[in-house]
């Protein structure tokens, strides 16, 4: 933790970065995003097991970007987000610097290449709890799964916290906001909710970094992140590609192989 505070302080003092995005103290034991612009406030930065939110979400926010070069405290999924955002031309190398927290060690990663190297050493990002839950769901019959998701999704109030918390949901206009035609019904109801979440998962397939932040952001506790993680896992299983592995575009869903398996097509 001290190493991080020192590092951030140095960077801010030297003017290498103008803002350090990290975790600060929230209510109780919770952590909340903290934007440090003055070297002396670097001491407020915290790193511990409770820091799980993917801070990459803020890298594409206009309000943050206008501050100048950003240093971001990065857990492994944040690093992947940076690469995926770079691949999708949403962020340039000179705009960001990662303060990677990997196994309790803080490392400054100033280039995409350095981030790529670091990401390459990080194993599967899906948490054990998520893995267990997906396995459990996969073992169910189709009607059982339908019942499970119907029960979950009926509670969705379409607050879009999942979308707002996701670093890859940076679109200025989401499909849900399109009203000609109205792909996703505005009101919250079972079918519309299903359409919304399936759409979100499809849009994240091949781009999701499996941070699970969307699920944690849900105020009514729907495990929406399982859908995006599942879609991402599906891409990995079928095409061997994954989101956030490279700063160069390697998006499985906009490429193909002539011999992709197709036994389901008659």
């Amino acid at each position: 933790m001290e190493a991080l505070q020192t590092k951030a302080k140095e960077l801010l003092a030297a003017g290498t970065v103008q803002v350090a995005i990290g975790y600060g103290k929230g209510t109780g034991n919770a952590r909340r995003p903290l934007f440090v612009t003055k070297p002396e406030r670097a001491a407020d930065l915290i790193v511990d097991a409770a820091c799980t939110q993917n801070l990459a979400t803020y890298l594409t926010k206009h309000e943050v970007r206008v501050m100048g070069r950003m240093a971001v405290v990065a857990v492994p999924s944040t690093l992947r987000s940076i690469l995926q955002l770079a691949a999708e031309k949403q962020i340039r190398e000179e705009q960001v610097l990662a303060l990677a927290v990997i196994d309790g060690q803080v490392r400054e990663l100033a280039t995409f290449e350095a981030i790529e190297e670091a990401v390459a050493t990080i194993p599967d990002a899906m948490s054990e709890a998520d893995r267990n839950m997906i396995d459990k769901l996969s073992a169910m019959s189709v009607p059982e799964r339908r019942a499970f998701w119907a029960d979950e999704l009926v509670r969705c109030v379409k607050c879009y916290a999942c979308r707002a918390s996701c670093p890859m949901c940076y679109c200025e206009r989401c499909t849900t906001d399109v009203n000609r035609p109205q792909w996703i019904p505005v009101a919250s109801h079972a079918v519309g909710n299903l359409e919304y979440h399936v759409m979100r998962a499809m849009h994240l397939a091949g781009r999701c970094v499996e941070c699970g932040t969307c699920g944690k952001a849900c105020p009514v506790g729907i495990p929406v992140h399982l859908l995006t993680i599942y879609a991402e896992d599906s891409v990995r299983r079928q095409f061997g590609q994954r989101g956030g592995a490279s700063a160069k575009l390697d998006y499985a869903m906009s490429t193909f192989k002539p011999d992709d398996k197709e036994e389901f097509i008659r």
Partner: protein
Amino acid sequence: MAEPFEPKITAFVCNWCTYAGADLTGTSRIKYQPNVRVIRLPCTGRIDFMMVLKAFTRGSDGVIISGCHPNDCHYTSGNYHARRRWMVFRDLLEFVGIDLERIIFSWVSAAEGAKWADLVNEVTSKVRALGPYRELRQLAAVGID
């Protein structure tokens, strides 16, 4: 006695292979069941997964998606892109509990008039046996749409 159930089948087809193939079914006068409604699109690459989802939520009992065989795409590779999308989409649909039996993918070329008739007949009969697709419609009833 209630009327026998006649399924609604929506088919998304590409203009160059399957639509032309279905035209050939017509010129060859091969009969098939009248339950299918064709949505003509230029290419399978144009088939947005949202359309498929919408077809179901709007009351289709079955969906056919069909285009050019691999290598035969009029636009070189639209069908390959589409195929990848379907691979993930199918996987995801099954994960949220939607029956894949009602969504059939097929390659039907401009020369395969008979295959189109077979496909429509097979899907219609299969969906007729499965019965109306109540699950999503029941969900719709929960909401206000």
